[in-house]
């Protein structure tokens, strides 16, 4: 198939389908899920059967319904966190690239120090002190991850601001706002969209890992990470219960990654953006 005259590879189409299904799941969860997420409908770790297509979980709730509702929780939180990450990172990154050297240096030094800490460790620390309510989680992740986005956004913006057409706008007397919004941003969209996808994947996996460690979203709200944690014991009995939410996490991440890969193959990231600052 083609979009805007360019052939879209098969892998990106698969990614697109997955993302679409995820969106449907988020928006229409109550209409799609067979049961309520807290309703007990069977025994402990029932195998898949006609009533419960994926079996039941550790206390007899329908796995499929909890997967659907859990997906809504997991994905939405990750999306919100990624949104804030991008807003902070891109905003500051563009600012650093477009204003004077002093501002740039200050921001870059602060970011360098924050970058020297792995997010997981720093996050664990914050959660130890402040607890793990959802707003705290979103805020912590956003602030820490925005440093990675800052680096990329700054590099992208700098590769654009050296262009003569930006200089033309400056000489004309255009303000910083106009230059960022009308000259820089339209040209920065492709790498930024790809970065959004990458950040979403990282955030999504990160939140799932946190929940898995018992530190993320608390029960009884379903969320894929904690579902794996709760059902982990099933493995020793030969059950597959924890694998369903884990597989769901993987599938969504793969889908987004496929689309991001396609975007990156069209528009390479500029030099200076650290390749895959995933930590």
């Amino acid at each position, binding site marked *: 198939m083609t979009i805007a005259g360019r052939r879209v590879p098969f892998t990106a189409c698969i990614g697109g389908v997955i993302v679409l299904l995820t969106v449907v799941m988020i928006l229409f969860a109550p209409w799609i899920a067979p049961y309520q997420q807290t309703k007990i409908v069977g025994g402990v770790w029932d195998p898949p059967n006609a009533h419960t297509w994926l079996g039941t979980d550790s206390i007899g709730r329908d796995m499929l319904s909890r997967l659907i509702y859990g997906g809504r929780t997991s994905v939405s939180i990750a999306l919100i966190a990624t949104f804030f990450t991008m807003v902070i990172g891109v905003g500051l990154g563009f600012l650093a690239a477009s204003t004077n050297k002093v501002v740039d240096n200050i921001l870059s030094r602060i970011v360098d120090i924050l970058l020297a800490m792995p997010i997981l460790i720093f996050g664990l620390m914050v959660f130890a002190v402040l607890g793990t309510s959802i707003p705290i989680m979103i805020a912590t992740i956003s602030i820490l991850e925005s440093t990675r986005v800052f680096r990329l956004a700054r590099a992208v913006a700098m590769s654009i601001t050296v262009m*003569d057409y930006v200089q033309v706008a400056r000489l004309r007397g255009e303000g910083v706002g106009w230059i960022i919004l009308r000259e820089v941003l339209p040209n920065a969209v492709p790498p930024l969209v790809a970065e959004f996808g990458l950040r979403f994947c990282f955030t999504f996996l990160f939140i799932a890992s946190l929940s898995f460690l018992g530190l993320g979203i608390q029960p009884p709200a379903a969320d894929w990470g904690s579902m794996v944690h709760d059902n982990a014991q099933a493995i020793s009995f030969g059950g597959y219960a924890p694998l369903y939410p884990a597989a769901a996490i993987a599938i969504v991440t793969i889908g987004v990654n496929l689309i991001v890969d396609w975007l990156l193959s069209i528009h390479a990231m500029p030099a200076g953006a650290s390749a895959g600052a995933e930590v």
Partner: protein
Amino acid sequence: MSEDLLLQIRGLRIEASNGQVLTDGIDLDLHRGEVLGLIGESGAGKSTLGLAPLVYARPGCSITGGEILLAGRDIRKLDTNERRGLRGVRVAYVAQSAASAFNPSMTLMAQVCEGPVRHGLMGRREAEARAVELFAALDLPNPQTFGARYPHEASGGQLQRAMAAMAMSCQPDLLVLDEPTTALDVTTQIEVLAKLRELIREYRTAALYVTHDLSVVAQIADRIMVLRHGRMVETGATEQILMTPREPYTTALVSERRAAMQGHGVAEAARRETVLAVQDVTVTFGPVKAVSEVAFTVSRGETVAVVGESGSGKSTLAYAAVGQLLPAAGSFRFGRDLLPPSYKARSREQRQRIQLIYQLPDIALNPRQKIGMILGRPVAFFDRVSGAAVGTRVAELLTLVGLPADFVERFPGQLSGGQKQRICIARALAARPALVICDEVTSALDPLVAEEILKLLKELQDDLGVSYLFITHDLGTVKRIAHRVVVMLKGQMVAEGPTAEIFENPPDDYTRKLLLSVPEMRTDWLDEALARREIWRAGPTPALA
């Protein structure tokens, strides 16, 4: 068929993966020791053709038809190993940009010796000795130790000669030279050209010399082939092509060069009121003086060309004039007004009166904005109008630069180089400036397109009375459009005055050297120029032999 015939190409067809045809059925004959010049504008297919004797096509392209016979053998039928044995050994390539053609992690000696050693032609010692010989023949400094340098430790001209040494290291039968002197300054070019010619003659190597510059190719080629859109337009002996071209395209190319050669500047009756006064301007970057106490004036309706080679400071001067760079000393005056050094401190009117046009239209136009917006915004900004008035004025501007009105809906990516530069000119005119600074605006364009732009600029000057400060390194351009000329060397102004005067009687050594170095479209020019340089270098009394 004489056994002197080295290369025979018949019906060569090279296509890109998107179906575009790069060369369409080209025939070519080349004898041993003969130099064939491949002339054409960008997109003519000359570089693609040049790579064919190496049985190589750039990624995304492939040779889809025709025969390539090297000494009677069809090299398209060779297998991979045989091809490798051919490249560098029997046919060698000299790239356009030596700086990027060399591996930054290896010394020059290692790269020059790699060919002969890896192909098993000679041992390392012998290869190094030979390399030193070639360095000496090419007049490189300290030939014994030059090879120990890394590419970033040598200058552009030195690298170009080193690349020639690398190509000659296996003593190939055929040398393909892809615009070898295009990236060099005029004064360096003449030396490299002379050395190349010497080398080719000494080893009786055949050569394909790819270039867009007729004057350069006249010095070195025995025959010329003119290419356009992948097809051969005309071919013949150099003299014949230059003196009596047959095809209209060839004629256009030749007369463009002739006009560049024969210009004597534009005469001026009397100088009118001063538009821009450059008063002892000095611009420094740290300890380096990029511009050093330069002073001259530009009058209304006048074109003043600022000429110099790379590093002369001419572009720096332009940026200082528009307020992008701050001078360390001196000032600019517009009429009587003293202009604040930084553009941020200047008023809207002051900024409006001086406009700048850049060299590369690709990065001077925002690829995500339509032409209507690129022109509309400055109009709205400077004229303080909106709505329909903007549209009218934009249409006016498009007509002024000779472009159709429906271009407002297009994006820059859909325009050709020349059209993009016209848009840049229109954008500058939107401010209704008194002075337009043109920073090498024709340097990146093909000769015929550049000629059109120069004509347009002249017309606009006659119609609107606008003045130009024309920054360029090309003396041919100066001769065609400039009333006055300023010559800069390493930041200093060494000559200033009416063009005709300065060029007829150069007041200083550097200007004279510069004028001597510009190739003319005569086959005997190079020998003459070298002889003149020797005399001039030796001083009024030649040294006793």
